[in-house]
């Protein structure tokens, strides 16, 4: 009797067969759930060097360990797969009703392999799995798909995670929409699209039992009161705050990182706080903080078009594209939601295209007469639409800036802002040198919400982030905990009945990060991949600062040492052994369980 169900579901779309497998207790304890469990299952179920958009690349949806209980901000799930942008592991956490419903179906995780021959959607109805035809849903947007599936099932409890037209046409940064947010970065939507999997509908009605419900409630009430109080007094939750100096970030890159201090952000920040646009702040299930700022897309009071504005999306589609007008940014985000695009990668791609346009690498013939100069409202909105439809210049940008810049050449790589292929936005390591290392290593890239970790503490910070994303406490809420390892360990013990030391939680985080690295090495990671885009070394910001290559190299070497990796950044066998991951080696040889895990 604990918050885990101890089972996971394997779905093979090719043969349309499913299988339920046991999750042994040591695996749950060692990898906690969420990102950790997802990474582990991905490694088990994927073939080495499989192309991200081939049927062999599985996609894993894994519930957080505390999900389904009352633990603060715990209604989380992780999506883990091999990214079509980077070719390495991508894992991201989302929260909402879909996460809660998935947990309550009685599965801790769902592994989806293979590919269907025609569009389908999955319906996981408590323990039952149905494959449903999705031909009629082809080309439909995420909100339309959700509405259509819910109408078909006739039950408002059915929650839908879907992809839009962008995922279907394999835009490399397409995302899955499973609530009010669009959080999944790295192209999970394209992986679903490559499997012809339009959506996953979930109806979960099962109860979650915990050994000590009274203790759990009391612990949660205490935490909730404190989290609510510290969040309310910090004022860092509103998306507009990232635009203002002195809000923990002293830099916000603008015009595709040509500038580091965005001008005119004050007026944009003021617009973000206006009641004409900001309708309400809502919360995910079990969250005492509430950080989802729901905006009305137009200033028409009768319009019912709404989007949730996130800081990263605001930074990427706003200042980075030279855009300081909120309605345009909201419209762009609404289009991202419609087509199922990651707004951060979309914004960086548009900014890159704008710089190409400025420099004459893209002519107005390429853009079909569209003005793509920085700050052009049509440029931002119509380019997003074109990416979603993969038409004209959108087809080029849909490949992500790494591939697009390689395709057009002529030095466009120099202003392609990506690390390992994943677009970066929101933070400028030239102004804040401490960000350079975590951005370059890229296990847990800095976000506008997190606090900047010191370079000595980056390992601990990353391990904590991995542990939090695995037990399933939302990263937004985590920073308001006073002593996260101790408080999370207590919640974990109350929910699972397994007493766990705070140090064990941190060790699990370290294990998960090593596994992440191990997966990337298996997929062909090389040392030069841990590096930053050339612009950050060459083009100084206003203050004259650039990232020093020498300093970054030294920081990376120090980081590898601290992690116990080799000087080349590889994970040695002793390290795996010390973290209790001996079985990984066997898995690599294909001897896993004695049977090939790739067939259901």
């Amino acid at each position, binding site marked *: 009797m604990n918050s885990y169900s101890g089972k996971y579901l394997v779905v093979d779309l090719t043969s349309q067969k499913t299988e339920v497998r046991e999750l042994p207790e040591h695996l749950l304890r060692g990898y906690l759930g969420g990102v950790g469990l997802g990474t582990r299952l991905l490694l088990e179920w994927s073939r080495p060097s499989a192309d991200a958009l081939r049927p062999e690349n599985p996609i894993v949806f894994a519930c957080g360990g505390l999900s389904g209980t*009352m633990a603060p901000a715990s209604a989380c799930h992780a999506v883990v797969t091999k990214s079509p942008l980077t070719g390495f592991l991508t894992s991201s956490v989302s929260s909402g009703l879909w996460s809660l419903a998935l947990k309550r179906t009685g599965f801790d995780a769902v592994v989806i392999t293979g590919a269907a021959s025609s569009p389908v959607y999955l319906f996981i109805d408590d323990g039952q799995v149905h494959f449903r035809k999705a031909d009629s849903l082809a080309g439909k947007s995420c909100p339309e798909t959700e509405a259509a599936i819910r109408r078909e099932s006739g039950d408002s409890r059915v929650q839908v995670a879907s992809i839009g037209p962008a995922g279907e046409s394999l835009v490399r940064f397409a995302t899955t929409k499973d609530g009010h947010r669009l959080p999944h970065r790295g192209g999970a939507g394209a992986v679903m699209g490559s499997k012809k999997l339009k959506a996953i509908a979930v109806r979960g009605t099962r109860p979650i*039992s915990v050994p000590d*419900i009274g203790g759990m409630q009391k612990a949660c009430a205490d935490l909730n009161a404190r989290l609510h109080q510290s969040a309310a007094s910090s004022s860092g939750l509103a998306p507009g705050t990232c635009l203002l100096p002195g809000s923990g970030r002293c830099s916000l890159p603008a015009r595709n990182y040509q500038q580091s201090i965005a001008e005119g952000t004050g007026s944009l920040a003021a617009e973000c706080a206006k009641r004409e646009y900001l309708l*309400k702040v*809502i919360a995910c299930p079990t969250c005492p903080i509430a950080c989802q700022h729901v905006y009305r897309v137009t200033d028409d009071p009768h319009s*019912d078009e709404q989007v949730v504005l996130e800081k990263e999306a605001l930074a990427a589609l706003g200042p980075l594209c030279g855009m300081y007008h909120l309605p345009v940014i909201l419209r762009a985000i609404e289009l991202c939601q419609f087509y199922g695009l990651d707004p951060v990668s979309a914004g960086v791609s548009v900014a890159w295209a704008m710089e190409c346009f400025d420099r004459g690498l893209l002519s107005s013939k390429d853009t079909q007469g569209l003005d793509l100069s920085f700050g052009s409202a049509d440029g931002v909105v119509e380019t997003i639409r074109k990416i979603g439809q993969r038409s004209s210049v959108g087809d080029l940008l849909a490949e992500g800036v790494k591939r697009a810049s390689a395709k057009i050449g002529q030095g466009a790589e120099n202003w392609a802002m990506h690390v390992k292929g994943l677009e970066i936005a929101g933070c400028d390591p030239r102004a804040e040198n401490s960000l350079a290392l975590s951005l370059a290593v890229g296990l847990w890239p800095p976000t506008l919400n997190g606090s900047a970790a010191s370079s000595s503490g980056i390992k601990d910070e990353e391990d904590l982030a991995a542990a939090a994303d695995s037990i399933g406490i939302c990263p937004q809420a985590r920073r308001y905990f006073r002593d996260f390892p101790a408080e999370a360990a207590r919640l974990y013990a109350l929910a699972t009945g397994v007493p766990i030391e705070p140090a064990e939680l941190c060790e699990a985080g370290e294990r998960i990060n090593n596994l992440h690295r191990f997966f990337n090495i298996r997929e062909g990671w090389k040392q030069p991949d841990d590096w930053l885009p050339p612009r950050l070394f060459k083009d100084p910001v206003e203050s004259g600062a650039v990232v020093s290559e020498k300093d970054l190299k030294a920081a990376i070497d120090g980081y590898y040492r601290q992690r116990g990796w080799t000087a080349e950044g590889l994970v040695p066998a002793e390290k795996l052994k010390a973290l209790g991951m001996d079985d990984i080696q066997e898995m690599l040889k294909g001897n896993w369980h004695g049977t090939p895990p790739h067939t259901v």
Partner: protein
Amino acid sequence: MERRHIQCDRDKCTGCMICEFACSAANEGRFDLELSRIRVLQATPPLMDVVACRFCRNTPCINECPRGALSLDEATQTIRLDKARCAGCGWCLEACPFGAIAIDESTKTVIMCNLCPHHDQPQCIKFCPRKALSLHVSARVKD
């Protein structure tokens, strides 16, 4: 005895559903949102509200029950359910103008808010992190 029911300040409510978790924990001893006596309505995201039994003055649920399973508890002014009589027919669900009654599929009996008689206060109110829930008290007018 005055009439009491749970009321929600829509401006404060964020739709976090902690009330549903607290309710099922108090009444069922586990986190089972299907059996929560209080429901968060979030059909259109900016409008949040909760639904729980309002203990109506004209008690349509009691009037409609064909088996006489529901009655008014004079002492607490809440609806009392005789589980042995309830067949889960759902007529009270149809009659309820607020949609505040649900069916427990496992026992085929109806469930509704009872204001947590075994606790010092309704648990949804106690656990609401935004203090959006409160007890509305009004005098019951004798017909």
